[in-house]
């Protein structure tokens, strides 16, 4: 009986310590994440006034617009499409790169990882402007072409430029988690697979890839999520010729006249929902197999 009380007292004290440790973080998240989120969620069911003011009248109209009007549906699909493309290209470039780095002697590995990280030292916006200089009609690449007597190419303000910028910006986020997964991978397993009759290709598909899947999944999520909401790259390199989700949201909030916060909020919510599903799938993939 006495032991029981003691035990309960100990548990209570533990709980109190836990609460004290969690409080600052929880407060932060409540104030700056949950609360704004609730506001956005509330806005998404409001009606937009004639001057862009919010009319406190419940409506599902924003969501209906979102899923019926082609301008929004297309932006949605286009964003998903370019995110899938970006993720795939990053994966195809990033996996071999990570594998190459892991197979180097330790000293070189550090140097190469460092090189992967170097772009982060410069502001992303500045780096995208640098791409503009490279790709512009009278930019560096076209300058080089014309000095060789070749006709100029339209590079800037194309969808290709958008994709290029996205892959460029997101590649390190793919390389690093895959590198971490490969670093933990025991390469003796590849010898074991070869020993049992597997060619390099089959050993990769049957052993190395499944075992580094958590890294691939983490990298893919890290690339996919920011890409789906991005608006900077498609604006600066794509020339804002077509609408992506991020561009639309940005416009609805800031640029259109009058602004339409409720519709923008609804778009943001729909995007979050889609991402949430994706993240759940990701956690499934990483926890079930290799933990």
């Amino acid at each position, binding site marked *: 009986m006495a032991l029981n009380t003691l035990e309960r007292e100990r548990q209570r004290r533990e709980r109190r310590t836990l609460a004290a440790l969690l409080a600052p973080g929880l407060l932060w998240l409540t104030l700056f994440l949950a609360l704004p989120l609730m506001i956005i969620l509330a806005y998404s069911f409001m009606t937009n006034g004639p001057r862009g003011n919010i009319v406190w009248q419940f409506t599902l109209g924003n969501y209906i617009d979102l899923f019926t009007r082609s301008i929004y549906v297309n932006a949605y699909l286009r964003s998903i499409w370019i995110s899938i493309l970006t993720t795939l290209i990053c994966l195809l470039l990033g996996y071999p790169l990570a594998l190459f780095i892991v197979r180097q002697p330790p000293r070189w590995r550090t140097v190469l990882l460092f090189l992967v990280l170097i772009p982060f030292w410069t502001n992303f916006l500045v780096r995208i402007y640098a791409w503009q200089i490279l790709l512009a009609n009278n930019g560096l690449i076209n300058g080089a072409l014309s000095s060789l007597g070749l006709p100029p190419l339209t590079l800037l303000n194309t969808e290709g430029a958008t994709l290029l910028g996205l892959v460029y910006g997101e590649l390190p986020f793919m390389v690093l988690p895959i590198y971490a997964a490969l670093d933990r991978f025991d390469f*003796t397993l590849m010898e074991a697979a070869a020993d049992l009759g597997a060619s390099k290709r089959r050993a990769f598909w049957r052993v190395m890839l499944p075992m580094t899947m958590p890294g691939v999944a983490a990298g893919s999520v890290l690339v996919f999520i920011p890409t789906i909401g991005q608006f900077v790259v498609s604006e600066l390199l794509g020339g804002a010729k077509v609408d992506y989700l991020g561009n639309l949201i940005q416009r609805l909030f800031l640029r259109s006249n009058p602004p339409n916060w409720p519709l923008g909020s609804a778009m943001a919510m729909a995007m979050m929902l889609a991402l949430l599903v994706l993240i759940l799938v990701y956690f499934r993939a990483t926890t079930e197999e290799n933990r």
Partner: protein
Amino acid sequence: MSTTNAVELRDVVKRFGDTVAVDHVSLEIRDGEFFSLLGPSGCGKTTTLRMIAGFEYPSSGSIAIHGREMATIPPHRRPVNTVFQSYALFPHMTVAQNVAFGLEMKRRPRDEIAVRVQEALEQVRLSAFADRRPRQLSGGQQQRVALARALINQPEVLLLDEPLGALDQKLRKELQLELKSLQRRVGITFIFVTHDQEEALTMSDRIAVMSQGKVLQIGSPTEIYERPTCRFVADFIGETNFIAGRVIENGANAATIETTDGLRLRGLTPRPVQVGEPAVLSIRPEKARLLAPSDARAGHAYALPVRVELVSYIGSDTRITVRLNDQRTFDVWEQNTLSTLDRDAYWQPGEPAVLVCPPDNALVLTE
């Protein structure tokens, strides 16, 4: 009986940068043989095994398996399988999937794979664990999965890289015998890499002792232990006493050495020695005898007066360290063939004694 060797290495050299890992090694491993590569770590035994498996290619020299040249054959096309030191089981597959892997790579029909996997697991008594993941098994069980995964492919040669290294002593002993009887049963050539001389002696038909990339001696366990051809082998296999000197006389298969302090000792010469050459007399501690001064025959040619210094009773044996009159020590092991508590039946420190080194039990060896 086929006359071609299971594995033949001809003058194989392997360099990694400036270091020579394997230095002109030639081996002929017979069909159905349990062959061990024995040596201290870094002696090149694992590199030799890896070249047979195909994970490394020789810098020069050639390797043939059943007469077939392996120079251009990648590991996945060689008729050998490996049991890795770390087992290298696939952690994301079940035990059954691990064992099935080799047959799947050979694209055998599903039904056949299922039947053979079951047989293979029965053979290593792991049928109950077919659906477990490797990490849910003990070290000994994992080792048996690795064995089943290799043997199911019916390789011409099975390569084992210190497969018992990670196991505790008792399990090791058990698995040594199990492995040996398994090898007899399946009749496959085993090439076994180990640094444990006792393990090699217990299991092998023949042993190659390696040091610094070179093969020093190849022979049966008895030959390696009883007739080592050089000082390193005598030292590495089992325990021995060395007395250093210079050869003063040599015969057909025996020689005499003289030490700096004037001792003259005679022993057999497994390899010819030259008069004047520096050499050691090697006598295993169980092959020397210790007599009470009163029992020693007067004027025995190879009897040396000594004093007992240390006595360790270890149950089956008593290990006695004696001091020769010139400050040398010498180990003698006596088997405790009598069961007695009588203190006088055992040697006591400080007692005078006579050490007898029969020339037939001693060897004169050079470097």
